[in-house]
């Protein structure tokens, strides 16, 4: 493998790769578990004046509303996003591929149509592990650097069927591990809140998806989580990310990291957008048995609509919010933000903060047992492991580790999963309805839904602070209701980072800093466990 090959697609990212096949809208009906077609609720929202003045400030719901009302064209919105990409993405490096011409063409077609879904005309960014027919899908890896999928991932088809426009593919941790880097570990995507400091953690592995939304290059995006890759970048960049229950969203056409734990989901600017995008992405898929036979998706847009009575915000349902021991053992500024969060939630009528006990063996079952997934990581990549270990670049260690857990140990891991779920349902979720966590991993292990959302700022340099709320299986609506009430009385989710400087000197410093800072294979193994 030559250096030229290594860098070909990642450094000279391809703006306007529009030779690819256009995704056809409306191609995939969705079916509820009982065989009936599902409908997606369309939110009617008031649009903030700041967003009317600058279309890149629009949320997905606001943009869709303006397009439906013929006060904005899809083409105007797509072009506004492309202008910011052209101006700033050599600093952010959020995208691998920008489909400029294709997106403009699709936008014009949307503008000629009557609205076809709740996302009609809204451009979206896709993490670069979702298959996109005719468009290169790399997972930021050597393995897939030339891979052009023959079909489009079901979740992306759903978004397009509901009117979404594919704006581009976003950078990610190689093969969905760590923060976004080149396959050799060289840092790429920055945190949009500290665009000139590549060392500030931007969250991973859905890094580019978060930076694109935070940096106003796209109104919304998709991510995947197999540990914390939706909630972590959302927390790092002042966004709201919704990791659904396992099986809610099809993983067909998503490059796998762990079959039993891969969760596609949205990364958005607020809870309404996260709910709307998940509602569009979700649904039973005949190509993915993990999606079949599940409870129907609740009306998430309704759940994301705050309830106001007599001028105050109420919870939609009485909800006990559990807090585990240690939630306030953190850096002082994080503790302040968390205390304020708890006070704010407790003041909302219908919400009650309660202390809950962790399940027995909480640390063991969510730490050492997190590594049980490594065998699943390895298995689908066996042909590449025997071909050339260097194809895995900086990420190879965890793929090798997966070869060293015996089948009986892997079975023990699956028994531990049921144990952990039982203890959560019979213990934690007996004492509360949703639970605040310091790590997304334990609930991710057993596939429970989680939402990451912003609760303040702190640190040096100043960066966003987020919270993670988890719930019982298939109760995404409960999580969304709580965060909707919280966001109705706070404004963290409306705050945006300043634009990066555009002078040449700053850009030169950034390119040097990126080369100087790289993840080692050992660091990548630790971050990607």
């Amino acid at each position, binding site marked *: *493998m030559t250096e030229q090959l290594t860098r070909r697609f990642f450094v000279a990212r391809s703006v306007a790769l529009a030779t690819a096949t256009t995704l056809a809208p409306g191609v995939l009906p969705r079916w509820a578990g009982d065989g009936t077609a599902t409908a997606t609720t369309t939110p009617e929202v008031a649009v903030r004046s700041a967003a009317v003045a600058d279309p890149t400030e629009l949320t997905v719901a606001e943009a869709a509303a303006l397009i439906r009302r013929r006060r904005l064209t899809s083409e105007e919105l797509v072009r506004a996003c492309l202008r910011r990409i052209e101006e700033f993405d050599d600093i952010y490096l959020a995208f691998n591929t920008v489909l400029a011409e294709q997106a403009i063409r699709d936008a014009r077609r949307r503008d000629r149509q009557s609205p076809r879904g709740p996302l009609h005309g809204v451009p979206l960014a896709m993490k670069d592990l979702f298959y996109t027919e005719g468009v290169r899908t790399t997972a930021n890896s050597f393995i897939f650097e030339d891979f052009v999928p023959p079909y489009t991932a079901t979740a992306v088809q759903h978004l397009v069927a509901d009117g979404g426009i594919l704006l581009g593919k976003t950078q990610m941790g190689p093969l969905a591990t760590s923060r976004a880097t080149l396959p050799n570990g060289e840092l790429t995507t920055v945190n949009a809140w500290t665009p000139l400091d590549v060392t500030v953690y931007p969250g991973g592995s859905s890094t580019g998806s978060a930076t694109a939304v935070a940096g106003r290059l796209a109104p919304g995006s998709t991510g995947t989580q197999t540990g914390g890759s939706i909630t972590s970048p959302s927390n790092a960049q002042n966004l709201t990310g919704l990791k659904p229950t396992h099986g809610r969203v099809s993983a067909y056409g998503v490059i796998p990291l762990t079959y*039993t734990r891969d969760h596609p989901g949205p990364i958005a600017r607020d809870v309404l957008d996260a709910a709307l995008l998940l509602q569009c992405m979700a649904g039973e898929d005949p190509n993915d048995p993990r999606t079949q036979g599940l409870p129907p998706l609740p009306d998430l847009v309704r759940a994301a609509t705050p309830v106001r009575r007599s001028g105050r915000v109420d919870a939609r349902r009485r909800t006990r919010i559990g807090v585990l021991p240690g939630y306030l053992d953190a850096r002082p500024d994080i503790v302040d933000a968390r205390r304020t969060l708890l006070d704010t939630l407790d003041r909302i009528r219908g919400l009650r903060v309660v202390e809950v006990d962790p399940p027995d063996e909480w640390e*063991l079952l969510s730490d050492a*047992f997190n590594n049980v997934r490594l065998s699943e990581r390895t298995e689908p990549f066996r042909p590449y492991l025997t071909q050339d270990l260097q194809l895995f670049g*900086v990420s190879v260690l965890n793929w090798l580790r997966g070869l060293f857990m015996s089948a009986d140990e892997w079975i023990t891991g699956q028994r531990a*999963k049921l144990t952990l779920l039982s203890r959560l349902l019979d213990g934690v979720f007996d004492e509360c309805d949703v639970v605040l966590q310091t790590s997304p991993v334990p609930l991710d292990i057993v596939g429970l839904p989680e939402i990451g959302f912003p609760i303040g700022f702190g640190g040096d340099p100043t960066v966003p602070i987020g919270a993670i709320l988890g719930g019982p*299986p298939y109760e995404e609506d409960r999580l969304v209701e709580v965060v909707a009430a919280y966001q109705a009385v706070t404004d963290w989710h409306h705050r945006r980072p300043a634009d990066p400087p555009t002078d040449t000197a700053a850009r030169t410093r950034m390119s040097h800093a990126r080369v100087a800072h790289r993840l080692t294979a050992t660091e990548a193994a630790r971050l990607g466990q």
Partner: protein
Amino acid sequence: MAETQPPTDEELDAWIRARLRLIGVDLDQLPETDDPVTGSPTREQALASLRRFLRGTVPAVSGWRPADDPALQQQTMPPVLYPAPHSAWTQSDGGGR
């Protein structure tokens, strides 16, 4: 029963290399020194990483049982690949709580 001695680095390395050879994975494809072009770890770094995994995660997982009694633990917590979907698939009312 005699106390089992933990394996030495050399024993683990020999087993790691043998296991990899059995399934056609060639550790010698990794470089002997740092390789910034691919970011690959060195062979020695890979061996060290695998030794840590074998001494840390593997015994922690292997030694765990869902209950104390060696006979009765067999009767509880059968393996479940997909815990959250399982909770829905086993609900008589079609899932959810």
